[in-house]
């Protein structure tokens, strides 16, 4: 199947007068049409920056895509002119942000916030766009009659439903969901997530689901990419990565989760902190925290090794054969 999204060697920096934050460092990813890719990693791993890069929305002037290609349906996003990019945004690629409390304009009715996207991209007259807004609200489980209400009249979970309605209003081909449920209560999380995955299936939308919740990945995603310090360290199907996690970082992530089947007093967190993105270590970025790091890891950057679509960026897995496992 053809990839709807193909990111190759993406490098994004945020620079100020004093320092350069290396947020994304040679990231490569691809997403097949109609699939859901889970992008997991700690806060600061560059997940959101990656998603913003796809929309060419990395905040300038500090943020800048330094190099790499982003192909959306074979088209190079970075080569598009600003007005062409605006045609893509909202219509072909939509994005859902983490915090629904701040993602909606407080002075505009939710109906209008949905309708304006429709008007922008489908050129519908006002009445039709308002009707569509009502339909979208119904679709996410909010009565259409509430389209004249303002965001402050909705709860957090309902606001996120509105945000989802905005994102899906023009039936985009690709949806970038940036921790869509992190800011919500646990009970609401499940509802919103279920509603979202139903709609995704219904519309056949391809999704990049950014999260640090491995449970969400297991339930909703087809593929997983683990990100660390701005690069993908492990990539594969959910079965591959969850059944046979290879990169020490991925293994560490699973070790930080409570296991209901086994009796254990303590979780095993990954020691240390994410490296300072202004001063990344030489060699493998994970080596300072890696329990299995060798001298080679500290000196030499690992490259990808692949086995049946399961890709790992680690010296332990060089040349396709497993060493020391």
């Amino acid at each position, binding site marked *: 199947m053809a990839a709807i999204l193909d990111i190759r060697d993406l490098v994004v920096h945020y620079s100020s007068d004093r320092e350069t934050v290396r947020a994304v460092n040679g990231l490569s990813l691809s997403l097949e049409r109609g699939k859901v890719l889970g992008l997991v990693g700690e806060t600061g791993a560059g997940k959101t920056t990656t998603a913003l890069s796809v*929309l060419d*929305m990395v905040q300038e002037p500090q943020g800048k895509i330094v190099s790499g290609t982003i192909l959306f349906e074979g088209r190079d996003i970075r080569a598009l002119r600003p*007005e062409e990019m*605006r*045609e*893509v*945004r*909202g*219509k072909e690629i*939509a*994005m859902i*942000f983490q*915090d629904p409390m*701040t*993602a*909606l*304009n*407080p*002075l*505009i009715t939710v109906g209008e*916030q949905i309708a*304006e*996207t429709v008007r*922008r*991209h489908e050129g519908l007259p006002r009445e039709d766009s308002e009707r569509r807004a009502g339909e979208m609200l119904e679709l996410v489980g909010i009565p259409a009659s509430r389209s004249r209400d*303002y965001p*402050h*009249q909705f709860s957090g979970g309902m606001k996120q439903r509105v*945000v989802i309605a*905005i994102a899906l209003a023009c039936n985009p081909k690709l949806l970038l969901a940036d921790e869509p449920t992190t800011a919500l209560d646990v009970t609401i999380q499940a509802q919103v997530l279920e509603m979202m995955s139903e709609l995704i299936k219904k519309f056949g939308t391809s999704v990049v689901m950014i999260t640090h919740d491995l449970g969400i990945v297991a339930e909703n995603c087809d593929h997983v990419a683990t990100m660390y310090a701005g690069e993908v360290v492990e990539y594969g199907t959910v079965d591959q990565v969850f059944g046979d996690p290879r990169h020490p970082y991925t293994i560490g992530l699973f070790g930080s989760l409570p296991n209901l089947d086994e009796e254990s007093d303590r979780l095993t967190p990954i020691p240390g902190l994410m490296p300072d993105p202004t001063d990344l270590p030489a060699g493998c970025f994970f080596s300072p925290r890696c329990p299995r790091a060798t001298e080679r890891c500290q000196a030499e950057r690992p490259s990808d090794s692949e086995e049946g679509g399961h890709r790992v960026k680690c010296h332990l897995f060089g040349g396709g054969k497993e060493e020391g496992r």
Partner: protein
Amino acid sequence: MLKYAARRVLMLVPVLLGVTFIVFSLMYLTPSDPAQIVLGSNATPAAYAQMRADMGLDRPFLAQYLHFLFGYKHPEFGYRGLAFGDLGRSYVTNRIVFELILSSFPNTVILAIGALALALAVGVPVGVISATRPYSTVDMAFTVLALLGASMPVFWFAMVLIYFFANRLGMLPAMANPSNALSLALPIVTLSMNSMAIIMRMTRSSMLEVMRQDYIRTARVKGLGERLVVRKHALRNALIPVITVAGLQFGHLLGGAVLTEKIFSYPGIGSIMVDAIYQKDTPQILGSVCFVAIIFTLVNLFVDIMYGLIDPRIKTAVQSGRKKAPGKELADALKRLFRK
């Protein structure tokens, strides 16, 4: 909403009590003597004492203040007091105090509206332009101009304007009066300069703040053009604090255009106040100050109601009486003060 407005109008009472008490005390403490002003300097000591008694000036301080509030009975110098909207007659002109105020106030309103309109018409767009290109040359230039505008003394700026436009170019008259629209140009420009600078800086910082918000990112992600993002999504949000500032400025303009009115010999309430102070005309001073305080409070109330029109969150808060609307810090502070 009505209940809210009524409550706010009621709050005028403590505000006025505070303001008048301060001004009254100040007048009481100044060495001038109204009896002497009325009689002139050649009166005999006996006539002078008689006049003091007639005017009620021989009474203790608090009694005099109560007279001022609730009236003073005397065939010649009596009045019904502030509570009944009557402060008697001016010692100097013998005109009814509030009559003079009411005849001059519309002139001040004309200047104030003109100045505020000019300040908004220039300040808001310039602020937006600055905010959309922060730290650019354009922004820097506007910033310098705004600093100049905010820091230049009014009397000096007025003099410069008069020198150029009236003396050198002869385009505009140096004396202003309300019946000649052209003559209002210089005082309006003078008066608006300060507000313009403040409104511009406020718009800029408020816009910068709003442009960083998540909902602006949402709007951009929808594919909306930058113009629409700025006009529809950012500007309205950014205007909320600007309205507060504009409202406060308007209050100041209505009450405090003293310098400008004086320089352009304009018959507004500021001129009246200054003249009254020169002449130690106590009733006229107190009357003008009270009037200005009332206007200032009402303008603030109006601004708070305006919020409801622009921000739906405040409308519901005000209607249900749950939350305080912003921008009434003064009234609140006074309220707290009087509770203690």
